[in-house]
């Protein structure tokens, strides 16, 4: 049995929605951030699957860009989360509410 492109697309769409649901439901800033990474990785999976299916390398190149940018974003994001933890001793989004949400 060969694994066709549809399997990859369904898996990545599933991953994407798990990520979206995680962002909307979970309250811990780190977990929310992990869910966002899951969304980016589902896009990576789609790109790689299409790249192999279409036989051109643009998709694989794009994945490198996405990974690099995600690393940069993680550096900034974790720094922000640490800064807020030092101030408020919590990373729970519901308790971070000086500004009206």
């Amino acid at each position, binding site marked *: 049995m060969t694994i066709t492109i549809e399997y990859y697309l369904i898996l*990545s769409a599933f991953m*994407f929605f798990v*990520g*979206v649901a995680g*962002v909307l439901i979970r309250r811990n*800033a780190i977990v*929310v*951030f992990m869910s*966002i990474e899951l*969304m*980016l990785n*589902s*896009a*990576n999976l*789609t*790109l790689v699957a*299409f790249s192999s*299916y*279409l036989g*051109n390398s*643009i*998709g694989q*190149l*794009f994945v490198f*860009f*996405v990974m690099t*940018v995600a690393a*940069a*974003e993680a550096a*900034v*994001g974790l720094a*922000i*989360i640490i*800064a*807020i933890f*030092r*101030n*408020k001793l919590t990373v729970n*989004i519901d308790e*971070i*509410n*000086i*500004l*009206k*949400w």
Partner: protein
Amino acid sequence: MFINFQEFFNLIPIIIVATGIVLSLLIEMYSKKSETILPWFSVLMFLAAGLHSLYYTKDVSIILQGMLATGGNVNVFHAIFTLGAAVVTLLSIDYIKKYGAYFGEYYIIIQTSVLGMMLMAAAKDLFVIFLGLEIMSVSFYILAGMNRKKAGANEASLKYFLLGAFATGFIVYGIALIYGSAQTTSIDFITSNFAELTKNLLFISGVLLFLIGFSFKIAAFPFHMWVPDVYEGSPTTVAALFSTGGKAAAFSAILATLFALFNGPNGNLFTPYFAVISVLSMFYGSIVAIAQTNIKRMLAYSSIAHAGYLAIGLAAGNHDAVAGVIFYLAAYTFMNLGAFGIISLLEGKDETNLDINSYAGLGNRKPLLAGLLAVLMFALAGLPPFGGFFGKYYIFVAAIKSHLTWLAILGVLSSAISVYFYLRIVVLMYFKPSENDFAIETNNNAMIAIVFSVLLIILLGIFPGTLIDLVTKFI
């Protein structure tokens, strides 16, 4: 040769900013007085890049193996971003001392965010859109939390980061689906084969996800929840940059990527999407702004409403609408920068005096400042003869041309509602005695920036033809 002289010459605005960033990092590293040198260095750099791009708008070309476009409206966008950033830098010089973020790197991060905006406007490939967007967004997350001791700023930064990264997830997934159905990431290919591609459901869902991601960035209604909090919590000058440069860059990216939508008289497949978000944002922004007592939150909701007016242009989807959107973005950028500039002058040490009642009696206490703010409020409300009026006028006319008269009428209604909360500030300034006489320290740098913005919107209001003709020529 890899790059010929003409290509190099057309790329100069981006090269100036990119080399400026590297030089600024060196200045920051080796100079003990980088905080005083860097602002002037960035202002000069931004002015050089902005004036160069305005002067050479006619050099239209596509360079670097079809990755970037130069000339034409790309240069107009470059000028909006760089001149806007120059205004922000001038406003910041004294503000960040007061705010407690007196660091040289503040200016460098503004520069990197401007580089990201310029790449987005110039993009001819989804790679460049993505990279530009991320350069801009990551710089913005840092700028929002520039003072890491302030809990409010931290919170703004966290909210901006989480929702911005969430939006990026949508955009990347959208790009992945667009790539899968178009087999390439070249925007020229997508534009020329748009009709063919839209038969593919995969492509349509990709574009829709892409648009949802960008709706976060332009702060349109269902995706607006971060806007008031982020503008309130971040430094006022930085909020000015978010609401102008960030929004203009996101619109330029939509215009660049989906130019096919704006190419025919009625060929806009996504009109329903744009129409819905524009109506919701206009009315939500205008109505909720009335209830606000914090002036930064009020301007945040007003910026949601402005995103709605701009989305009418996207819904109309013809060449006039594109010209109108660019004109509106130019006018909106400078009127919002001016308004935030005046707020940053009045703001006290610990983010005090942000209540709208602090503006009572300003007409007697600081006549010049009050006069400038009154002009800016009239312009934001869209009253003639200022730039804001013609921006709305061009967009509404374009909507009527595309048989979206109902949308234009709703736009006019919503502007009428918004007049209330803008003019409330003017009424407070001139017809109410002041309640507490806090000290107002003006400074020359900020005044130059504010007067420059006000002059520009008055000029745009008196001679709208100059810009609109220039823009229309290149569509």
